[in-house]
């Protein structure tokens, strides 16, 4: 370690290591992981969100899971909480997850055709 730049490069590399433990996130992505969700592939969806958020270094977003919300026919269900605003997406496959990250989380535009109501 010979310079401050070298330290900062290393910090960028390892930042992810503790990010999960910091502060309260602005946006929460919540993936339903009830038995129904898991059967419909929610675990892959969940991990896709985690991967995307980390790889694109998106700040202030957390990815967590919840139990069954009672919309078992439309799983995997994903809820995006942004302050008081709540959006519920149905049948979120890993591909859909990637688009939600790009368009909703980063772009701020909800994807109307996947939204469902409970």
């Amino acid at each position, binding site marked *: 370690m010979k310079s401050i730049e070298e330290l900062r490069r*290393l910090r960028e590399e*390892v930042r992810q290591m*503790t990010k999960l*433990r910091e502060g309260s996130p602005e946006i929460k992505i919540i993936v339903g992981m009830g038995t129904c969700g898991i059967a419909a592939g929610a675990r892959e969806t969940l991990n896709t969100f985690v991967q995307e958020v980390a790889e694109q270094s998106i700040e202030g977003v957390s990815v967590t*899971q919840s139990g069954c919300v009672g919309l078992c026919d439309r799983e995997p269900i994903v809820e995006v909480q942004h302050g008081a605003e709540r959006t519920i997406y149905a049948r979120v496959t890993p591909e859909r997850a990637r688009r939600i990250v790009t368009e909703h989380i980063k772009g701020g535009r909800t994807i109307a055709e996947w939204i469902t109501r409970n």
Partner: protein
Amino acid sequence: MSVYRSHVLVCAGAGCVSSGCVLTENALVDEITTLGLDKEIKVIETGCIGTCDLGPVVLVYPDGVFYSKVAPEDAREIVREHLYKGRVVQRLLYKDPLSSQLVQTYGEMEFFNRQLRIALRNTGVINPEILEEYIARDGYEALARVLTEMSPQDVINAIKASGLRGRGGGGFSTGLKWQFTHDAPGAQKYVVCNADEGDPGAFMDRSILEGDPHSIIEAMAIAAYAVGAEQGYVYVRAEYPLAVRRLQQAIEQAKSYGFLGQGIFGSEFSFDLSIRVGAGAFVCGEETALLASIEGRRGEPKPRPPFPAVKGLWGMPTLINNVETYANICPIILHGAEWYSRIGTEKSKGTKVFAVAGNINNTGLVEVPMGVTLRQLVFGVCGGIPNGRTFKAAQTGGPSGGCLTEKHLDQSMDYDNLVALGSMMGSGGLIVMDDSTCMVDIARFFLDFTQDESCGKCTPCRIGTKRMLEILERITGGEGRDGDIEALERLARNIKQTSLCGLGQSAPNPVLSTLEHFRDEYQAHIRDKRCPAGVCQSLVSFRILADKCRGCGLCARVCPTAAISGKPRETYVIARNDCVKCGACMDKCPFGAVIRA
């Protein structure tokens, strides 16, 4: 680097280690592996989270769910229900002692959300054995900035402007101490970290060393640069083996990354750090005794001046600061003196870590801004007094301090105010006492400690504290005489004025302070041969109340010395001379007819 969706923090502070966190952690890891979740969920051992009576403690991120008293058998449910299916395990949540409500996340716990963590910023958050986790949280950034952008005088000015005062007890301005050491002439200079932590009940220094050792290494390097030293020592007591091990490991990591050694960050500055393990005498926390001990001599204090800043280790200018003092340095450099000086009171800046123990719902470590009131600390952060009892007093400053009473509940907890109230901050020990506490016995307890720890070099401390202790033992033993209170006061005054070091100068404080606030308790012991709290064995006696006794005879059956006699359905009586005051009859009586007075 792999990305995890969840971090499971297992507190591995010494408190949780003794409550079995290692087994809990292993069980969690096993279960996670069994379910094939080990690529998604990472288990991390951290330093002390602070809620020491709730261990083993497990914190699940990103949601921040806080589980307490997690046994290895609970691991399966946490992993299958929560980590896999997202259903929080309600039965392991913390229950708020005041509202009896379950608290879902740690951010909603009064214990945490009223805290402001600066010295403890990483403790309980990072894995102290992994340097990268420290770096991810801005570790070594302060040292890098100091070495590349600031002169030693700039650093000293920043510390002065922050208003930081020593957390080891004295509360002396840290910036001024750095200035004196910087200005003192000397071919060699040293920086020392005081991690002797002798105050019984205080464990913030241990927790910081165990939970965030790099923060101390980094701060000591900054201090060394500021005062012009190239060698540092951390003096840790041998009773802290985990702290010693983690610190040793951190020093080696820092060396291999070049944060310690020659030409740090490409500058001219070199710094090396070693550990000195002390054998754990209270007096070795006193700075001159500590330095003598590092030099390999007997740990005895010397008169000051000369102060260590001028003539310290091997006669050279030496900066000595406490662990918690150092733990504040990097945040001051990173966020600025102005930021720091906005926290706290006019003369006591920043935060203070308190080690809270005694009759209180949440014992453990809490860091709060200077100037919070005793009430906020006891009834807010720490959840009040358990078992339906009432607050009687709180001892601050450990064996050198004094007690605060109910009438002080709304007083500010800062250096100067505590001194004004006849107590002191000390190292931040806070022992809370409820109405079942005998204050004469408490004074005796603390004096017994200081008397035992007196190094014996000076007469007032060696013999004076012994005489005081004899009087206190006499009073609590039921043999108190007229004039004892006056004799205690006279001895206290003389010892305070004539002792060589802080140990003797402060040893009488607990006696003086309890005499001031609870003189009537002393008088009851001496005059009426009565201990109002019913603690002093020689003065208590058990009695059966005739109007409550139903004559069931249970007391007589449990009495180990057959001191209780009577006939069924008549009032039983205790024979004083045979009673050994074990209290078994009182515990057993279903009607509350046995009283202790």
